């Protein structure tokens, strides 16, 4: 808003300004927009910069108000890496995020396909239930679920109570995939059926290749969800440090090294890094997915 008002303040459209004035107005507009852009970029980027600078300070300097490291202690990263438990947390997080993502995609695609492309009784109701499930806060059902997994199946202290449900279709993924599949024209499916493809073949050979961007977005979202999940591991894995994930372990890491902000920030960088690297490889799918949740509805 501020940007556009600045522009017209200099060159009101009403007076039909002479060409040189318009050119000057455009320049002012360009400068205003880009300085605002740089200011915003600083707000978004500086925390990362300070985070990183602190992560390579020595133990004593991290307790001072200095912003720039005297000596670059790259060894902080290997100290964190070799902290007991850190590698285990990595393994657990990869297991949770990797297996969970795979199960989610395999189980959600057929459901989304049915909701998007088949007309059956109760379709609208099913869709409403998916949306209700998607909006359900995990805390609402956590107590019966905990009593079921930990009490009856004795799986507390593991991540299985978090992974196994993903084999039954995740509501958010079903919804997102359905929105994506709606954009695939029915004619392609009809053509495949005329050519004698069964439903399964149509799904595997025609729908899946066309839905690849949607599937990529869902897989990424699910991977990030599991990577970032704190509540789930806190409920099911907190009494067994061998089952902690990075998100849960990172906080306790701060507790154990309560004066070492440099090590804590190095650990924080190590937890953020994979997510950001993955984003750079899959930027397009990710942004498409975010857009799909909000706009194409």
């Amino acid at each position, binding site marked *: 808003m501020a940007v556009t008002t600045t*522009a*017209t303040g200099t060159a009101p459209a009403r007076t039909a300004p002479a060409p040189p004035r318009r050119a000057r107005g455009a320049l002012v507009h360009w400068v205003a927009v880009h300085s605002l852009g740089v200011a915003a970029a600083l707000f*978004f980027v500086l925390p990362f910069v300070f985070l990183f600078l602190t992560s390579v300070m020595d133990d004593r300097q991290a307790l001072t108000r200095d912003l720039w490291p005297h000596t670059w202690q790259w060894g902080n990263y290997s100290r964190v890496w070799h902290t007991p438990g850190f590698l285990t947390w990595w393994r657990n997080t990869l297991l949770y995020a990797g297996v969970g993502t795979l199960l989610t995609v395999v189980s959600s695609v057929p459901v989304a396909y049915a909701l998007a492309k088949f007309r059956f009784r109760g379709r609208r109701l099913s*869709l409403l239930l998916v949306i209700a499930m998607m909006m359900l806060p995990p805390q609402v*059902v*956590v107590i019966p679920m905990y009593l079921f997994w930990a009490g009856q199946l004795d799986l507390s202290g593991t991540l299985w109570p978090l992974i196994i449900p993903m084999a039954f279709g995740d509501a958010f993924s079903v919804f997102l995939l359905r929105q994506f599949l709606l954009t695939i024209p029915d004619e392609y499916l009809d053509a495949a059926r005329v050519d004698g493809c069964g439903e399964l073949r149509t799904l595997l050979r025609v729908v899946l290749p066309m839905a690849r961007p949607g599937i990529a977005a869902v897989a990424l979202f699910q991977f990030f969800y599991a*990577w970032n999940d704190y509540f789930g591991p806190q409920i099911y894995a907190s009494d067994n440090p061998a089952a902690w994930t990075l998100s849960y372990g990172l906080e306790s890491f701060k507790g154990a090294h309560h004066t070492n902000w440099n090590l804590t920030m190095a650990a924080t960088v190590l937890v953020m890094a994979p997510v950001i690297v993955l984003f750079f490889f899959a930027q397009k799918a990710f942004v498409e997915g975010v857009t799909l949740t909000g706009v194409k509805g």
Partner: protein
Amino acid sequence: MSPWLIGFALFFAYPLLSTVYFSFTKYDGFRPPVPSGLHNWTYLFTDYPLFWPAMRNTLWLVVVMVGCRVVFGLGTGLLITKIKTAPGLFRTLFYLPYLAPPVAATLAFVFLLNPGTGPAGVLLEGVGLHSPGWFTDADWSKPALTVLAVWGVGDLMVIFMAALLDVPKEQYEAAELDGAGAWARFRHITLPNISPIILFAVVTGVIQAMQYYTQPLVAGKVAAGVIGGSGEQFEPGYPDKSTLTLPQVVYNLGFQRFDYGAACAAALVLFALSMAFTALLMRRRGGLIGSGD
């Protein structure tokens, strides 16, 4: 559909009904539940000291945090559509914080805003401002969480950006010919065109605020200097209950006090609030269900 139906029954219908049942019983997880009428509900609303602070904090977050996120999301979305030099770079920089894992981002912000050694304090004092206690001051802990939430506004930015690019160009051109200024164009063309997206952002933001858990909990624990790990006791909502939210109430009642009955009652309050907003979202914007119906 059928595996999903099993999942629906196992992970939604059955536990939800159990939660309703447990909320009317006295239940500690060891002995079988004993019916106790409305006892959990009256306890929650009148005697349990954390419930109303959590509700007040939620209201604060719904108004201020959601409001700030929507305004900043729309602002950065607009800004990005105007940036002509290296727009991709700016967009990526604005978007990156959204990807930071919540625990990591919260830890980083507790450090950055730490009044003693945090860089934010150094910067603020550099321009002559006094840095407040942020996460250790009950008046500032929610504003600090709001700064953290605004930092991660990248998702809304992308959604608003896409919506803004979809506004028909002809409408702007026509308005410009009619002599409408920038504010008039924003007010009469941009806003009406993107109002469904604003509603979407507000309602999903409110639902997120209801479920706000990881950031306030981690901020409170780390700022209080709690040693992490299993079964630890800590002052909920440090400092002075200012970072308590409803999900923390459920956790505190259920997994720290083993009062599953009262925890289920609190969970149902959360459920009722979230579903009320979901209903609003679906009623006001049939588009969520989309074409084909």
